[in-house]
């Protein structure tokens, strides 16, 4: 049975008028009985600004026991709808085989004009909604129990639910939820509900088939690039080659005789419109378009910029982010001091699905179909570009062919809307891969200088970390003395302040220098952790070797005050057969991370032959608290390892005279089958609150490989992408 259905199908199914109980949350509200779900009004616009933690999920149990659970997070590869629905179903005591999952793709419709976002980012979907979803399920459960108690005239506390039934009635009687719908609907919503003990979970912690794979393997899932609107034409974009440039000879350009229909100026460049994307792109490439080249951007070269990062680290512009003890004094007094400088490049996201959006703008309304991680941002920015009120813009979110943080941005959606408004037709706008690579919101390049002091017994006494790079938050108008996300991973971020990493470190000083570039800085899967985990985990490895200790044992000593961290690394020692590589002639390296309220340790086995690094095996151990769907957790960690490893070994965006030098997969290559290691993920059982896993394994991948390469060759690879000396 395909139990995953589209919203349209769901509305058809439910229009037959079977009575149903619908329980849900509106943003941060308590669970409540909602009007039946025969129209989208089942979820009325939230009255408070939605954040990542708001939930618009609901469950509908009908009189024939058909049960539907809707969740609102973007699907871009995390399989998030399945996990979210399982949480509600668990608390209810639902029979999972009777549950249908619906994605709420039209979240944009429900955003209050001018307010926030219903974003999917920062590995927050499960951990921020866990409590709210449990409450929805538990509220529905209590309503059914109260209804049954009333019918049987017994104390509700003697009843329970399982398998879509209320059980424990007189003489072992039970009633299905469906039989109780009418009565349950009429009852007051309980103000307080009891949540299940995790020990009683029967669904959470299992791995049922994830949401919607039928459509994927049949090729019928609708991604952004597949959205189709009656009368639609296609647009291809050609951006200015130098960031910030604009077209200077628009009036001189013509599509006459080319087969294309129009040229439209859009933010960042021009778009060519035709009845085929291929035609539009061909003509866009052939036009004799001239763009101006802003001086500052044109003067930008990554070689010079990387050199300036070193100067910034040594210069007076560094700002203290965090200090504990007296690191300078401790280093001055130490017997052994080691230091190292690390560097990571700019990176593009290279989403499998290039930027694309479909827009239909009429005189007074705009409807959009967008693969987006942030429908609210699309609504806001499109309205602004069109001169509309936000309420005039409807955003239908499609499936995403990956997001990685790129699709929280709205530039491509704005362009589609601008073109549609200009030509008065619905339009699907697609970027070529070349435009995608050259016009990203890049993971900024960073450098970091680390200096550490060891005691005579080899224990770590102090370190100083000085990093420099571009602020991502200032790109979105949040100017802080130290950009939180720039140093995330050198420190732990708690709200708007910092605390020390998990490692035991008596003296610590972290400083940072913030620079500007003409490039657009953006959120790239795991954000600051993507570079800082490389810096920290490489340096910990260097310290271990300087102390003459095994890198895993060295970490165990430093993690002794965090039982969960310790357990993860101890388990890694066992499952990765640390010290005894399973591949003949291979060397091992490892890395550890605590982030997103989860703990993860990774070991890899590599060989280096003829100057080529090959990663054969990767073994990870995760403690992400209460695991909802173990196989999805494993899948996310597996993918993150390949993602982090591929970038660390292969990728750099470089800029010369303001022009991005890379353009497609031949010069911004991706790992393929032959590059991918065999990956094993082990889980630590836990009933702590769930942590995030979608980005967790990205940061540790590169340092684990670099540390293994050191073990194999004695070469310390401190610059990414990795390059061995001949």
């Amino acid at each position, binding site marked *: 049975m395909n139990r995953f259905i589209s919203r349209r199908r769901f509305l058809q199914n439910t229009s037959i008028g079977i009575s149903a109980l619908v329980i849900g949350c509106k943003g941060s509200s308590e669970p409540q009985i909602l009007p039946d779900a025969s129209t989208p009004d089942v979820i009325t616009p939230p009255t408070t600004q939605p954040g990542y933690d708001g939930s618009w999920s609901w469950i509908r149990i009908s009189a024939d026991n058909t049960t539907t659970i809707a969740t609102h997070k973007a*699907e*871009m*590869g*995390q*399989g998030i709808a399945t996990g979210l629905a399982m949480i509600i179903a668990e608390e209810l005591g639902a029979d999972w085989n009777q549950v249908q999952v619906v994605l709420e793709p039209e979240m944009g419709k429900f955003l209050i004009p001018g307010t926030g976002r219903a974003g999917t980012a920062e590995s927050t979907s499960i951990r921020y909604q866990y409590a709210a979803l449990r409450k929805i399920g538990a509220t529905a459960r209590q309503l059914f129990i109260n209804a049954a108690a009333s019918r049987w005239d017994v104390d509700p506390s003697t009843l329970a639910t399982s398998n879509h039934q209320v059980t424990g009635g007189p003489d072992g009687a039970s009633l299905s939820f469906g039989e109780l719908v009418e009565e349950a609907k009429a009852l007051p919503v309980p103000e307080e509900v009891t949540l299940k003990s995790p020990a009683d979970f029967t669904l959470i912690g299992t*791995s049922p*088939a*994830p949401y919607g*794979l*039928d459509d*994927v*393997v*049949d*090729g*019928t899932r*609708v*991604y952004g*690039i*597949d959205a189709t609107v009656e009368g639609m034409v296609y647009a291809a974009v050609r951006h200015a080659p130098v960031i910030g440039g604009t077209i200077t000879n628009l009036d001189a350009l013509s599509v006459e005789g080319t*087969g294309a229909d129009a040229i439209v100026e859009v933010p960042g460049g021009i778009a060519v419109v035709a009845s*085929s*994307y*291929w*035609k539009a*792109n061909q003509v866009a490439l052939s036009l004799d378009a001239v763009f101006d080249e802003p001086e500052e951007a044109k003067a930008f070269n990554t070689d010079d910029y990387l050199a300036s990062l070193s100067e910034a680290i040594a210069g007076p512009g560094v700002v203290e982010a965090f200090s504990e003890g007296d690191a300078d004094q401790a280093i001055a007094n130490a017997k052994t001091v080691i230091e190292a400088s690390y560097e990571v490049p700019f990176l593009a996201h290279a*989403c*499998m*699905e*290039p930027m694309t959006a479909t827009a239909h703008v009429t005189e007074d309304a705009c409807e959009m179909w967008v693969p987006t991680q942030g429908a609210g941002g699309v609504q806001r920015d499109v309205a602004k570009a069109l001169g509309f009120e936000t309420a005039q813009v409807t955003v239908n979110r499609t*499936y*995403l*062919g*990956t997001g*990685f943080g790129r699709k929280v941005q709205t530039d491509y959606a704005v362009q589609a809307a601008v073109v549609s408004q200009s030509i008065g037709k619905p339009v699907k706008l*697609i970027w*070529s*891969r*070349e435009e995608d690579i050259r016009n990203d919101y890049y993971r900024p390049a960073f450098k970091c200088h680390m200096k550490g002091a060891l005691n005579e017994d080899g224990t770590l006494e102090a370190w100083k970390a000085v990093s420099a790079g571009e602020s991502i938050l200032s790109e979105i108008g949040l100017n802080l003395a130290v950009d939180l996300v720039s140093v995330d991973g050198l420190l732990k971020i708690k709200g708007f302040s910092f605390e020390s990493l998990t490692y035991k470190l008596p003296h610590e000083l972290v400083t940072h220098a913030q620079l500007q570039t003409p490039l657009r800085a953006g959120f790239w899967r795991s954000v600051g952790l993507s570079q800082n985990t490389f810096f920290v985990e490489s340096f910990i490895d260097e310290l271990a070797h300087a102390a003459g200790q095994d890198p895993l044992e060295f970490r165990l000593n430093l993690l002794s005050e965090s039982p969960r961290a310790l357990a993860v690394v101890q388990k890694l020692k066992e499952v990765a057969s640390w010290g005894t590589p399973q591949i003949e002639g291979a060397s091992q390296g490892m890395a550890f991370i605590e982030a997103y309220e989860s703990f993860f340790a990774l070991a890899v086995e590599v060989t280096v032959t003829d100057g080529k690094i090959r990663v054969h095996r990767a073994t990870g151990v995760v403690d992400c608290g209460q695991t909802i769907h173990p*196989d*999805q957790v494993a*899948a*996310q960690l*597996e*993918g*993150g*390892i*390949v*993602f982090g490893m*591929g970038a660390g070994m292969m990728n750099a965006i470089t800029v010369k005279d303001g022009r991005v030098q890379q353009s*497609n*997969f*031949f010069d911004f290559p*991706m790992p*393929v*089958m*032959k590059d*991918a*290691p*065999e*990956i094993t993920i082990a889980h630590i059982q836990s009933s702590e609150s769930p942590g995030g896993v979608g980005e967790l394994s990205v940061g540790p991948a590169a340092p684990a490989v670099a540390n293994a390469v050191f073990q194999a060759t004695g070469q310390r690879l401190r610059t990414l992408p990795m390059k061995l000396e001949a």
Partner: protein
Amino acid sequence: MSLKLEINGELRPVEVEDAKPLLWVLREDLGLQGAKFGCGIGMCGACTVLVDGVAIRSCILPVSQAEGKKVQTIEGLNDALGTRLKDTWRELSVPQCGYCQTGQIVAAYALINEGKGSTDDSIDAGMTNICRCGTYGRIRAAIKRVSTESEAGQ
């Protein structure tokens, strides 16, 4: 120009420029959107379809070269092997975002048909499609499972 294409066993007339890549004819003119656009230069494999049984990158194949040949897309890959591959992809929860997976399945179909789906080396050599979600381990496991079954069945 007017062309007749044989797509998934059906003759489909189209009126297109002969240089237009097969991918865009499938997607724009024939409404078959299972093959995806990823790079436009024949590297990533998201657009993979079968032409006379051979897995090709349809984003760089001019449609005129597909005339007179049998084109099979993911939508039409429903024989025993195709169905088994799709089922196995689900059983092992291979897809994450799923965008590249139709191309992966078509490439795997050709690989297994050539008898090259059972060893790591032949899978490494034959599967060159990019998956940004990094599902390679599961793709490999699915290919091996289907290969082993089809060999056992012969």
